[in-house]
C-alpha cells in the first residue's frame, strides 16, 4: 500500500476518534442553520408590517433564509467572523495533525512506522482538506434540509443559483489549502500547538495591521521623511497595491463574494462595487476571484515548499 494512502487511512481513523470534529460539525451543520432559521422567523414576524411600506421583506427572507440563502450564509457567515470560522477549523485540525504529534511525542513513532516523510505530510494534508471539504459540503447539504423545513413557516422556496454557489464552496475550500499549509508550517516550526495556533490567528492580521499603521505614517502631511523616501523610491504604487495581495483578503474572497448580492438586496438596488463606498473593502468586492486564486496559489506554493523542506530535514527529538 502506498505510504500516502496508509497515512490517509491512519489519520482518518484518528480524526474520527476526536471529539472536536463532531463539535465542529454540530456547530456548522446544525447550530448555524437552526439559529439562522430562528432569526428568519423573528424577522418575518416583526418586519411583515413594513412590507406595505415598500420594504422587500420577501426578497430579504429569500436571500438569507431560504435553502439557497442558508447555504449562502453558511459559506459567507464564517468568512466574516473574527477570527473566521474557517481559520478556527483549520487551526484545530493543524493542532490535531501536527501539534499533537509533538505534544504527545508521537513523531518518533509515526516517522519510524512510516519513514517517507513527504508521504506522511501529504497524507495529513489530504485528511485535513478532506475534513474541511466534508464540513463545508455537510453545511451545504444541511442548509438545503433546514431551508426546506423553513419553507413551511417562511415565504421562501428552493430556487437559486445552486451550481454557482456550489462552485464558490469548492473555490473557498481550495483557498483554504494555503491556510492549512500556513497552519501546519507554523505549528511545526514553533514546536507548540498553542503558540502555533496563536500565530496563525494573529500573524496575518498583524502584518496587515502594520501596513495600516505604516500607511498612516506615509501619508502624513506635511511631507515626512518616511513618505519622502518612499516616493523617491517610486514605491508608492506598489505600496498602494499591497492590500490586493494580503493573505486574509484573498483567502476569504470566494466566501465573501455573495455578500455584495445580499447587500444589493438589502439596499433595494443593484449596487455596483464602486458605489458601495466604505462597504466595498469589507464586502471583498475589490478583487476578482481569479486574482484571489492566483495570490492564494502563490501563498500555498511558498508555505508548501517551506513546510516540506523543514519537515524533511528537521531532527525528531
Amino acid at each position, binding site marked *: *500500500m*502506498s*505510504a500516502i*494512502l*496508509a*497515512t490517509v*487511512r*491512519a489519520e482518518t*481513523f*484518528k480524526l474520527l*476518534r*476526536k*471529539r472536536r470534529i463532531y463539535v465542529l460539525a454540530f456547530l456548522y451543520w446544525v447550530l448555524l442553520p437552526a439559529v439562522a432559521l430562528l432569526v428568519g422567523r423573528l424577522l418575518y414576524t416583526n418586519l411583515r408590517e413594513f412590507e406595505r411600506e415598500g420594504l422587500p421583506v420577501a426578497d430579504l427572507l429569500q436571500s438569507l433564509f431560504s435553502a439557497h440563502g442558508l447555504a449562502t450564509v453558511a459559506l459567507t457567515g464564517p468568512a466574516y467572523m473574527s477570527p473566521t470560522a474557517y481559520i478556527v477549523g483549520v487551526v484545530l485540525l493543524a493542532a490535531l495533525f501536527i501539534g*499533537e504529534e509533538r505534544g*504527545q*511525542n*508521537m*513523531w*518518533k*513513532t*509515526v*516517522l*519510524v*512506522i*512510516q*519513514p*517517507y516523510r513527504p508521504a506522511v505530510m501529504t497524507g495529513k494534508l489530504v485528511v485535513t482538506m478532506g475534513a474541511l471539504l466534508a464540513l463545508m459540503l455537510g453545511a451545504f447539504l444541511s442548509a438545503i434540509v433546514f431551508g426546506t423545513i423553513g419553507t413551511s413557516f417562511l415565504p421562501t422556496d428552493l430556487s437559486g443559483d445552486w451550481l454557482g454557489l456550489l462552485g464558490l464552496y469548492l473555490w473557498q475550500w481550495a483557498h483554504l489549502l494555503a491556510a492549512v499549509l500556513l497552519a501546519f508550517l507554523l505549528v511545526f516550526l514553533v514546536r507548540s500547538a498553542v503558540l502555533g495556533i496563536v500565530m496563525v490567528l494573529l500573524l496575518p492580521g498583524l502584518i496587515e495591521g502594520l501596513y495600516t499603521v505604516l500607511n498612516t505614517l506615509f501619508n502624513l502631511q506635511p511631507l515626512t521623511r518616511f513618505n519622502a523616501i518612499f516616493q523617491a523610491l517610486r514605491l508608492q504604487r506598489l505600496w498602494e497595491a499591497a492590500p490586493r495581495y494580503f493573505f486574509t483578503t484573498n483567502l476569504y474572497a470566494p466566501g465573501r463574494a455573495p455578500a455584495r448580492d445580499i447587500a444589493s438586496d438589502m439596499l433595494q438596488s443593484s449596487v455596483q462595487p464602486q458605489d458601495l463606498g466604505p462597504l466595498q473593502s469589507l464586502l471583498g468586492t475589490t478583487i476578482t476571484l481569479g486574482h484571489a486564486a492566483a495570490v492564494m496559489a502563490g501563498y500555498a506554493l511558498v508555505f508548501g515548499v517551506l513546510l516540506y523542506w523543514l519537515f524533511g*530535514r528537521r*531532527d*525528531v*527529538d
Partner: protein
Amino acid sequence: MNAITATGLTKRYGAKAAVADATFTIEQGEIVGFLGPNGAGKTTTLRMLAGLVRPTEGSCTVLGQPVPGATLREVGTMIEEPSFYPYMTGRSNLRHAALLHGDVPPSRVDEVLEFVSLQDAADKKVRAYSQGMRQRLALARALLWRPKVMLLDEPTNGLDPTGIAEVRESLRSVASEGVTVLVSSHILAEIEKLVDRILAIDAGRIVFDGPLRELVERMGAPTVTYTVTARDQAGLLAALAELGYTPAPRNQDGADVTVPADEADLLIERLTSKGVRVTSATLRGEDLEGAYLRLIDPHRRPS
C-alpha cells in the same frame, strides 16, 4: 548478513559531540546490549539508527539499506518514554499504527495484545494505563509488523519485577525467531540475563564492543565472593579465619567470603579438609555491573 551497521556515526549539537565516530556492526539474530551512563549518547545513536536524527557525519544501514529509508518499516522501536494518543484505547492506538504501516493484517493487533498480556485492558483509554502497561503496549506496537530489527531504549523502565521478567521472556522469544535486538538499559542485571554481546558507549564514544563474557573477563576483578552455608556456622567462620580470610556472617548458617580469584576453585576443598560440612556454596562471580563500572571508570575499586 549485517542487520545494523554504523560507520563513523557522529552527531554534533554545536561544538558538543553527542556521538563521536561510532562504528559497529550487528549480525542478524543477535541480541546486543547497549550500555552507557545518562547522556553517553545511547538514545542519540538509537535515534540515528531509526532515521529520526540525521548524523552530522558518518552513515548507518539497517538490513543493508541506508537510513533513513524504506527498510525502517521492518524496524520496531521503543525509544525513550512510550508515547500514545491518550484519548484512544490501547487497541485503537495499535490499529492506528497498523493502518499507518499499511501491511499489518487486522488480526495481528489481537495477537500482539495477547503476547504482552494486555488483552483485558485493550479497550481502556491509554490515559488510564499504568507505566508498566504503557511499556507493554509500546512493545506490542513495536512487534506489530513482525520487525526484523528492534531498537529498544530502556524497555523495562517503570516495570515491576514480574513485568521485567515478562519483557525479558518476550524479547527472548522474539529473538529466537531471528529478530535482531539492540536494547539499552540501565538495569544491568537485566541486560546480563538477556544479551550475548555488549556495546558500551561513554561520552559519545564506543568504549567496548564484544561478548559479555569478554567484558567481564577483561575488566574482571582480582577477587571473587562466595556465599557459603554449613551446618555449623561458628565452625565455618572459624575455619575461614584459619585459612586467612575475613568472613562476614550471613543469616544463621552461612558466611560471605572474598577470596583471590586464583584460589576460588580450592575454597570448598580446604573447608572440607578442616572438617566443615558445607551444605551450599554460591559463587557470586564478577558481574556485568562491576565490569561495566570499571570500564567507564578504570580507577574504581571493586566493592
